[in-house]
């Protein structure tokens, strides 16, 4: 069976790592961080998030704050527009549509339209938040933070020399509270007026008891919920009170393992699996997030336009297994005659559907029709599967 290898370099920890360890969580290395894989049972954590609420420590996510250099500012809204205008040429979404409090999911693209990272850009509400944030926040994958910083350093100065950026992971933590009972949990920890909660893909400062947070109505589980930015010194009491007050409502702390099965059910892509620098958002089925007709030209636009008109070499599809074998990344996808079609990128046993599911890329100009019977070669054996609608769980993505 498998063996674990020891880590060579010291891992980064979050302000909660010790508490996770003390709570008996199984910790693993993820993108250079020591993170909880699971606190109890992966399936229980997954289902708690679907049925009640799940609490995640995602402080490893790259938190980048972008602003206008001192001495160049001309007021909050103008500064925010300056930063957004500089970023607008690097992403597929139209950042001119953002306004204070609004966020958007998008991609940093290279000239070939390949994905440097999938990110969320937040046009922050007016004011200074958590002593560190105003103007624009960019959240990227932990595994891509260096690549994102390199790309910004290469691209931004030539676009807008007055924009500066720094990562704020040394002062701020990020929690995710997800699931149908998240509002009740927030009320239980001291949110007085649920009317202050931001709408989907908006962010707003909130007071939870005596703790100040910046709440964003975003997440990566397929459930409604919030992500909470909080100062390092406040994150342990906040985590503890959320666990204590949330427990009677069915809340569980959730680790990376269930985070992965939750995002897979929601058919959300994972960088390194469904996304990389050689794959485009169109191939990944994320065409909705690319506005080819937006006013500002952007890096990768020509390549994506060519792909849209000329056709794509591959397509991301969703598969449901008709047997219990679980597809794993790089398992071959074949047609019924054994001809190779492509490869699995993510697979898991879906606790919500009680069957194995997978995503993968199919080579060729046309996607497969829903319901098409295929096979996934799991550990040398072709196992039957069929093409299903995206996402596996929840509404349209």
């Amino acid at each position, binding site marked *: *069976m*498998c*063996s*674990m290898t020891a880590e060579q370099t010291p891992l980064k920890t979050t302000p909660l790592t010790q508490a996770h360890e003390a709570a008996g969580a*199984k910790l693993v290395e993820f993108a250079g961080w020591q993170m909880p*894989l*699971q606190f109890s*049972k*992966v*399936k229980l954590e997954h289902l708690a998030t679907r049925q009640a609420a799940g609490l995640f420590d995602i402080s490893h996510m790259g938190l980048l704050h972008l602003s206008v250099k001192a001495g160049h500012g001309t007021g909050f809204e103008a500064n925010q527009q300056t930063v957004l205008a500089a970023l607008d040429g690097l992403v597929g979404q139209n950042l001119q549509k953002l306004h204070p409090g609004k966020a958007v999911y998008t991609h940093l693209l290279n000239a070939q339209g390949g994905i440097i990272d999938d990110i969320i850009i937040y046009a922050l509400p007016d004011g200074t938040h958590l002593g560190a944030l105003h103007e624009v926040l960019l959240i990227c994958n932990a595994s891509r933070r260096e690549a994102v910083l390199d790309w910004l350093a290469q691209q931004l100065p030539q676009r807008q020399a007055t924009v500066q950026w720094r990562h704020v992971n040394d002062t701020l933590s990020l929690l995710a509270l997800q699931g149908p009972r998240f509002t009740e949990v927030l009320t239980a920890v001291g949110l007085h007026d649920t009317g202050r909660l931001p709408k989907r893909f908006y962010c707003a400062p909130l007071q939870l008891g005596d703790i100040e947070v910046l709440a964003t109505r975003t997440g990566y589980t397929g459930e409604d919920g919030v992500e909470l930015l909080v100062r390092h010194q406040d994150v342990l009491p906040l985590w503890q009170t959320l666990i204590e007050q949330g427990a009677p409502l069915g809340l569980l702390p959730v680790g990376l*393992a269930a985070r992965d*099965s939750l995002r897979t059910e929601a058919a959300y892509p994972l960088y390194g699996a469904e996304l990389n620098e050689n794959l485009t958002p169109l191939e990944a089925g994320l065409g909705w997030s690319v506005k080819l007709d937006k006013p500002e030209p952007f890096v990768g636009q020509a390549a994506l336009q060519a792909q849209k008109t000329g056709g794509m070499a591959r397509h991301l599809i969703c598969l449901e297994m008709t047997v*219990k*074998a*679980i597809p*794993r990344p790089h398992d071959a996808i074949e047609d019924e005659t054994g001809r190779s079609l492509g490869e699995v990128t993510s697979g*898991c*046993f879906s606790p919500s559907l009680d069957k*194995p599911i997978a995503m993968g890329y199919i080579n060729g100009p046309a996607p497969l029709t829903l319901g098409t019977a295929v096979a996934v070669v*799991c*550990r040398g054996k072709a196992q039957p599967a069929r093409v299903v609608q995206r996402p596996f769980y929840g509404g349209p993505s």
Partner: protein
Amino acid sequence: MAKAEDYGIPEGTKFLDTHEYILFDEDSEVALVGISHYAAEQLGDIVYVELPDVGEQFEQGDTFGTIESVKAASDLYMPVSGTITAVNHILEEEPELVNDSCYTDGWMLEITVNKAKQLDDLMDGEGYIEYVEKAAV
């Protein structure tokens, strides 16, 4: 040295180096087969166990099934040659029993042992603990 009982290993249990165990009852010549607690811990939460049919025969070292956890899949190997007399169908609904109680409710196979002498090739509980402790270093 660590005692096998401290690890919840029933007396008389023998192990393969691939972490399958066999608990042989000399009177009935029937044995239970499963995987060790250490192996279950290494695999993480188990979500599926594929087991053979009753009546199938296997030689020592043959693959008799597959175990899938949230993070990996692994083949299961026969500790000795034998014929399947029962499989633990409860694992189809509750595979997590392998994590919770691998030596009791989480058993996988009941077999009749064809060559009892093969049991001598296997590690006993204390030998197995020493083996996994070495592997962990």
